[in-house]
């Protein structure tokens, strides 16, 4: 019976409630509003630095939020999710450099490649539990990283993809124009978040929560646990790859660090920082980490120490992410207000 009871020990987490009223368009409206604000930003602040910051937030935010679909929603702690970020960057960069196809074609083709790779790797990984899942994903990450390093003729080895990625205009969009790149990144971010929100709130999203809470029970209400895990593994990979594509466009290249394990480590840390129990937690975490990184790097060359202490503060001190903290605080206030 131990197997059947295994899920009982799961920590009860606060999860977003299903709202009784149909709010089909609420998320869409929020997304449109957010996009409008981001799109208008360059008119108010012309600072290139700020726009660069938002583009980086888009790349890492898509990556971190997709990781949360695995970690927070499904309980799959992937330590190799960064491989798909790297795959997206390299796949897209190579496609543009070697074939000269239009950008949208390269975009779709990169996602198609990611899809195939994620299906193969996912099919192997999702059979394993907990720490072993973490290890085998880490191993695949390192495998891809060392392939990139060693396949010098194609990837440029440890030098990365150099010489710039050609960005020919398409449909009136010229991604070598900084403003166009900015708007496109924002659009990809908002669309990506909207899609992931949809997944999280769909019946499938609740299937994932059930698997996280108690996989055995889930299989006894007719859920094919392995299949559901594989589906979310692949979907998350696609969003991570999109983040990688934005990054490749931004730096006009791709570097082995994009596929290194530290990207996965940072993704996990971002999730922790922002909190895994709210959908936008990872997005908040992304902004925080990037600000933190930029500030600390400017102030001291020892930014590892500062970053480490911040992590310790959240992991040992707060014991939760910032958004978890905020949500709980509000819930408490509301509770007091009623009582």
């Amino acid at each position: 019976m131990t197997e059947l009871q295994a899920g009982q020990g799961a920590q009860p987490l606060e999860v977003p409630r299903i709202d009784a009223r149909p709010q089909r368009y609420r998320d869409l409206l929020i997304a449109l509003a957010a996009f409008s604000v981001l799109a208008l930003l360059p008119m108010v602040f012309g600072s290139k630095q700020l726009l660069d910051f938002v583009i980086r937030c888009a790349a890492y935010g898509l990556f971190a939020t997709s990781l949360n679909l695995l970690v927070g929603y499904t309980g799959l702690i992937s330590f190799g999710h960064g491989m798909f970020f790297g795959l997206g960057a390299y796949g897209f960069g190579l496609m543009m450099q070697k074939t000269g196809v239009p950008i949208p074609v390269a975009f779709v083709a990169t996602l198609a490649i990611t899809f195939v790779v994620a299906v193969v790797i996912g099919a192997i990984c999702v059979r394993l539990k907990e720490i072993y899942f973490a290890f085998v994903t880490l191993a695949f990450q390192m495998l891809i990283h060392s392939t990139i390093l060693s396949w010098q003729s194609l990837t440029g080895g440890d030098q990365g993809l150099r010489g710039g990625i050609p960005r020919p205009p398409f449909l009136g969009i010229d991604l070598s124009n900084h403003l166009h790149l900015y708007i496109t990144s924002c659009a990809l971010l908002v669309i990506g978040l909207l899609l992931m929100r949809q997944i999280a709130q769909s019946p499938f999203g609740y299937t994932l929560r059930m698997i996280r809470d108690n996989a055995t029970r889930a299989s006894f209400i007719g859920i094919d646990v392995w299949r559901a895990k594989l589906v979310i593994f692949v979907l998350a990979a696609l969003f991570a790859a999109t983040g990688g594509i934005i990054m490749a466009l931004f730096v006009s290249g791709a570097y082995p660090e994009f596929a290194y394990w530290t990207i996965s480590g940072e993704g996990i840390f971002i999730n922790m920082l922002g909190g895994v129990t709210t959908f936008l937690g990872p997005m908040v975490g992304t902004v925080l980490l990037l600000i933190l990184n930029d500030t600390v790097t400017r102030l001291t060359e020892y930014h590892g120490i500062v970053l480490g202490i911040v992590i310790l503060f959240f992991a040992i001190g707060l014991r939760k992410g910032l958004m978890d903290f905020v949500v709980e605080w509000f819930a408490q206030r509301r509770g007091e207000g009623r009582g």
Partner: protein
Amino acid sequence: MIFVDLDALASCLASPACLVTQTTSGLIIGMLLFLVAVGLTLIFGVLKVVNFSHGAFYMFGAYFAMTAYQLSGSFALAILSGAVGTALLGLIFERAFMSRVYGRDVLMQLLVCYAFVLIFDDVVRMIWGPEFKSMGMPAAFQVPPLFIAGGVVPPYYLLLIGVALVAAVVLGLGLARSRIGKVIRAAAHNPGMVSALGINTGLIYGGVFALGGMLAGLAGALAAPVRSLTPGMGFSVLIESFIVTVIGGMGSILGALIGALLIGLIRSFGSLGFPLFTEGLMYLFMVIVLVSRPTGLFGKEVA
């Protein structure tokens, strides 16, 4: 793309001299990895914690040894300070930080370790500087290499293998025979039992961390004369030790030994046959083992 150079591998396998040279270099890689990995596996076995910052002990061991050697000129003292210094570090690290996250979810434990990977690397950078350092070969070993069946074997390699072997045997016997060893093994099997016996679990846990730190520090100190020292040197060793423990089976000491030797040999012979894909070869091997035997070669089946 030159992934494969099977001719080089084949011609080496046909030559005794090359076989000896490659095997020796595989053995020293393997023995160093074993010392790091066995601590990792012990800590996991007893505490059920994956010490992601274990590579830092290896790094500190090397730096402590270098400093001690530069100050005293004594190689023995260098090795000793590497081992003892990291043992203390392990004890402090466990009592002050890791003990706060036992029983919490894996994510938190990994994060605390991740934080220390960042912190320790920067601490080393602060104290010893960011550039590559070298301890230099002790005078006693600056002698012509031995030739065994035509293969070149530096005498220091023999010492290194010897010391690591002694450590392995002492550790194995200690765990099998001594009272404290029995308690540690019991704790690995059934953590609840130890506290039921009235033994201070905090002491055992701290002790295991100190032991693990000491072994990794010993490995770092032994490696110091033959490797260049740099902040971040712990990480590649950590990743390889992970592979070793996962291949051998988390919690298994014999598994760590076999796994380490396998990885050492894969590295040394793989560098001939697959010069650019040696690391990839290790990960590939790990994936194959994990897929066919998720708990590793010597791991206990998860009930």
